[in-house]
């Protein structure tokens, strides 16, 4: 619903993401604040922000695959890993610029994801979830069992820093700008996809694949495309991850991570790009809070012992997510929409 006094007079306006001058202004302020963030906060928070931006790319991709197209995907971390290793190998062996390795990592991950997308054509729900978990194991198995000289096996692989015109993108701040630019591009692209015929086809297949087929949507191709797009996003995120840590190893891309990515779209709200971003922010913030509070707690209450504190961190995080699901099962985006609609109608409740 539109704010009072705002009427679309052209279809492009009806479709536009930003409908009012105020919304444009808010977006400009938000982007300016993001651009100025390194001036406002310390390097530790910038490092956290980098992780959030990379997660945002990966989770927006998952949102398209799972939230929009309804294809359960518990292999997003593996797809990210494929991207990370691709970037690592390309950067180390070929010395290609990150301007090429990042999209190529996306393509490599998309190819891997596409295979699982094809299996989504035949199976649904629970069985599909199991199959995508298999992606996780295939990835681990391949990295650990291929000759060590290829991917580094269990030792992992080092990654040279990204460079632009001889400038090394290695500091937290310069990485932040690289991640920010990539995130802005990928989020823009996600909005393009979800409001195009593809976004509509994804939702159609999710809501009623029989009707979608009879309406002329190629259901198999649509599901495979959803996986392809989702995995491409994961691959791009993985490449950035490789450039950020300058080191990749299999245990950075586990089933545990995949489950967290799912938690992020659920907490933020299924089927909403903004919801995915909110989910990433909220969960990563809680995670960060717990990780930074944990050691302090262990230090100030010595008799608890470090082990218990660190073990209970994950329990606490899991509990927080469970609480979210109970209180707000449709996600934060849903709550926000209700609040927004209420605000626009106020004081007339109709």
């Amino acid at each position, binding site marked *: *619903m539109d704010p009072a006094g705002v009427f679309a007079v*052209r*279809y*492009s306006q*009806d*479709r536009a993401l930003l409908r009012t001058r105020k919304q444009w202004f808010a977006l400009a302020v938000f982007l300016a604040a993001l651009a100025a963030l390194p001036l406002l906060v310390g390097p530790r928070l910038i490092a956290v922000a980098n992780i959030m931006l990379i997660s945002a790319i990966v989770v927006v991709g998952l949102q398209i695959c799972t939230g929009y197209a309804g294809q359960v995907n518990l292999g997003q971390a593996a797809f990210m890993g494929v991207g990370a290793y691709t970037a690592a190998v390309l950067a180390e062996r070929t010395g290609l610029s990150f301007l090429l390795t990042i999209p190529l990592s996306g393509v490599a991950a998309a190819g891997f994801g596409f295979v699982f997308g094809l299996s989504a054509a035949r199976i649904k729900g629970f069985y599909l979830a199991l199959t995508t978990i298999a992606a996780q194991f295939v990835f681990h198995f391949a990295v650990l069992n291929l000759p060590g000289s290829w991917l580094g096996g269990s030792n992992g692989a080092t990654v040279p820093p990204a460079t632009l015109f001889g400038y090394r993108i290695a500091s937290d701040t310069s990485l932040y700008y690289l991640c920010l630019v990539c995130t802005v591009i990928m989020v*823009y*692209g996600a*909005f*393009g*996809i979800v*409001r*195009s*015929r*593809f*976004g*509509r*086809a994804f*939702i*159609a297949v*999710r*809501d*009623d694949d*029989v*009707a*979608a*087929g*009879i*309406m*002329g*949507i*190629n*259901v198999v191709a649509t599901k495979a*495309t959803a996986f*392809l*797009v989702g995995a491409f996003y994961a691959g791009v995120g993985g490449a950035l991850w490789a450039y950020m840590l300058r080191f990749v190893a299999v245990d950075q891309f586990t089933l545990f991570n995949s489950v967290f990515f799912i938690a992020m779209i659920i907490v933020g709200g299924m*089927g909403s790009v903004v919801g995915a971003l909110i989910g990433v922010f909220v969960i990563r913030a809680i995670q960060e809070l717990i990780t930074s509070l944990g050691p302090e707690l262990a230090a100030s209450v010595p008799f608890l012992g470090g082990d218990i504190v660190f073990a209970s961190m994950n329990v606490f995080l899991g509990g927080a997510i469970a609480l979210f699901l109970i209180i707000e099962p449709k996600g934060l985006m849903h709550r926000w929409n209700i609040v927004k609609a209420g605000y626009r109608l106020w004081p007339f409740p109709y």
Partner: protein
Amino acid sequence: MTPLAARDVTLRFGGVIALDRVTVEVRPDELLAIIGPNGAGKTSLLNVLSGFYRPHSGQVELEGETIRSLRVDQVARSGVARTFQGTHLFAGQTVVENILVGRDVHMRTNILQAFCYFPWVAREEDEHRRAVEEIIEFLEIESIRNERVGTLGYGLRKRVDLGRALAQEPRILLMDEPMAGMNSEEKEDLARFILDVREARKTPVVLVEHDMGVVMDLADRIVVLDFGRVIAEGTPAEMQRNPDVIRAYLGEAQ
């Protein structure tokens, strides 16, 4: 050329013979009604005609060409549209979006172009949105165009269902019990839309319907199915006098 025909089609579900050597021809520019008691095989016939079920034997021909090798979405792209018994709308989408899905068969944008959202992607969207608005106006659902379909009443949902099929600009339109569950006012509205569609587009319509009043008023020709077999075929007046038809219906009522 016959727009759409089933020739000698047999369809089985395990031991149940849903269609038994059914031959039905849809003639150009006619409204063909398919009637029959519950479980007669009407929906199965539409599913075969729209390529959703592949018959065990027999052929379905779209303008003389067999559709045997086509997937269901390819049949749709070749110009067969249908509405559903009950509702099969995309619940997470608005009315406009649902109808836009019907336009997909005419859209060309690929995924990379969608990602970049080039200006001409927006132009294509606008073009199809314009076509959708015409349908919305025709079906008199302007006021609900941005509502989610999940919140709509049954009558309105059926209109959206029809709108979605019309958006495909089909060469033939199949409708499965569009009036079931409607009150008489809603039925009248929908009957008017169906007649207008034929008037404006000259599209042949295959209508599966239980309401005899509606069928007698709208149909040019009627095919009667019973236990998966065609038991009679002819004009509404002929069918009213046909003893087999009367028996099938009375037999069911007893």
